[in-house]
């Protein structure tokens, strides 16, 4: 009886803490961002999602890095060179440091969040460029909820969920800190689907992403994400609605997967 009780306790704890069994250091996912208007596709940018291990004197963290760069043909019209990164606990994907360093067609913005999960506070730093090239900083101290994460760690955290236990229609709400504001993001499991991709035919979990109480990314099942229905749960394909047409994110290559 005692071993059974112990085993059940461990299982329960693992589920409760949301242990990470899907994301490991050394993973590299490459995507092509495409603009789709009336079925005519135009490739716009390359998106890379990489993970690596970062050692400090006290602990080891996981660096989740996402970069987006427009293709050469777009650079003269609208050059995008974006960097998003989050430093998280490798077991629970709790964020400690988040950085957003974006350069989009001459517009530059830098955001940094230093998370303190114990006190549930965030020290935020916003840096923008003036027209003359000089920068100005804005510092804030924010109070956050116990489960608030940044955008990058939330995206990776979705991969650690036990989606195979979910029923179609089940929805989970996440709190995401973006531009110093806590936003409620809903992730709804719709169905299991097999889709064609550059990696071949892959069985996927089809999820609908929506932003609650905002006009952007409304709850209309237009913003969809397909995660591979295996232990890695890597994003295979995503579609999102933009004012004129649709945007798509298609996987190009995947390496260094955990399972």
């Amino acid at each position: 009886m005692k071993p059974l009780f112990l085993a059940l306790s461990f299982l329960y704890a693992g589920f409760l803490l949301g242990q990470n069994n899907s994301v490991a250091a050394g993973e590299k996912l490459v995507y092509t961002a495409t603009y789709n208007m009336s079925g005519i596709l135009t490739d716009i940018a390359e998106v890379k999602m990489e993970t690596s291990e970062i050692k400090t004197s006290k602990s080891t963290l996981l660096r989740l890095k996402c970069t987006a760069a427009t293709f050469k043909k777009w650079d003269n019209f609208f050059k995008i060179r974006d960097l998003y990164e989050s430093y998280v606990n490798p077991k629970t994907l709790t964020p400690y440091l988040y950085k957003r360093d974006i350069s989009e067609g001459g517009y530059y913005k830098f955001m940094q969040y230093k998370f303190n999960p114990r006190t549930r506070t965030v020290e935020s730093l916003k840096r923008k460029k003036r027209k003359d090239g000089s920068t100005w900083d804005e510092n804030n101290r924010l109070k956050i909820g116990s489960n608030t994460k940044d955008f990058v760690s939330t995206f990776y955290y979705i991969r650690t969920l036990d989606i195979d236990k979910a029923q179609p229609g089940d929805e989970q709400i996440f709190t995401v800190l973006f531009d110093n504001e806590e936003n409620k993001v809903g992730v709804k499991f719709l169905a299991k689907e097999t889709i064609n991709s550059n990696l071949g035919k892959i069985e996927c979990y089809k999820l609908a992403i929506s932003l609650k109480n905002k006009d952007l990314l409304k709850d209309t099942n237009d913003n969809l994400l397909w995660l591979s229905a295996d232990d890695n749960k890597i994003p295979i394909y995503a579609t999102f609605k933009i004012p004129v047409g649709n945007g798509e994110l298609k996987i190009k290559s995947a390496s260094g997967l955990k399972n």
Partner: protein
Amino acid sequence: MKKLFVILGFISAVIAVILAVTPLSNLAIIPILLGFICGALILYLSKGEKQKPKSIQYIFLLLIMALSLTIYKGVFVSNEVGDVEQLEQREEENLEDSKEILEGLEIDDDL
């Protein structure tokens, strides 16, 4: 009626050329097709006339230019990421800065 198709044909041809020059050259296919349809209709409507309107020649000239450019770009221009040196430099700078910040943060392995 003929005048309407001439105007539509011209607008389509000009839009086709503009799109063909931009990175959205794939989308030029739609105005190219529209332009050719308008051109064909103008030809049909001016059947029997001794002198065909000069506008058809200009419309077809612009459409052929747009079509050639679109085909050329579709065949020869590949998807390559441009200069990312600056981005890589920012990545490195951010990593070094992050390491320093993380050293000063309270990190709890259980959270």
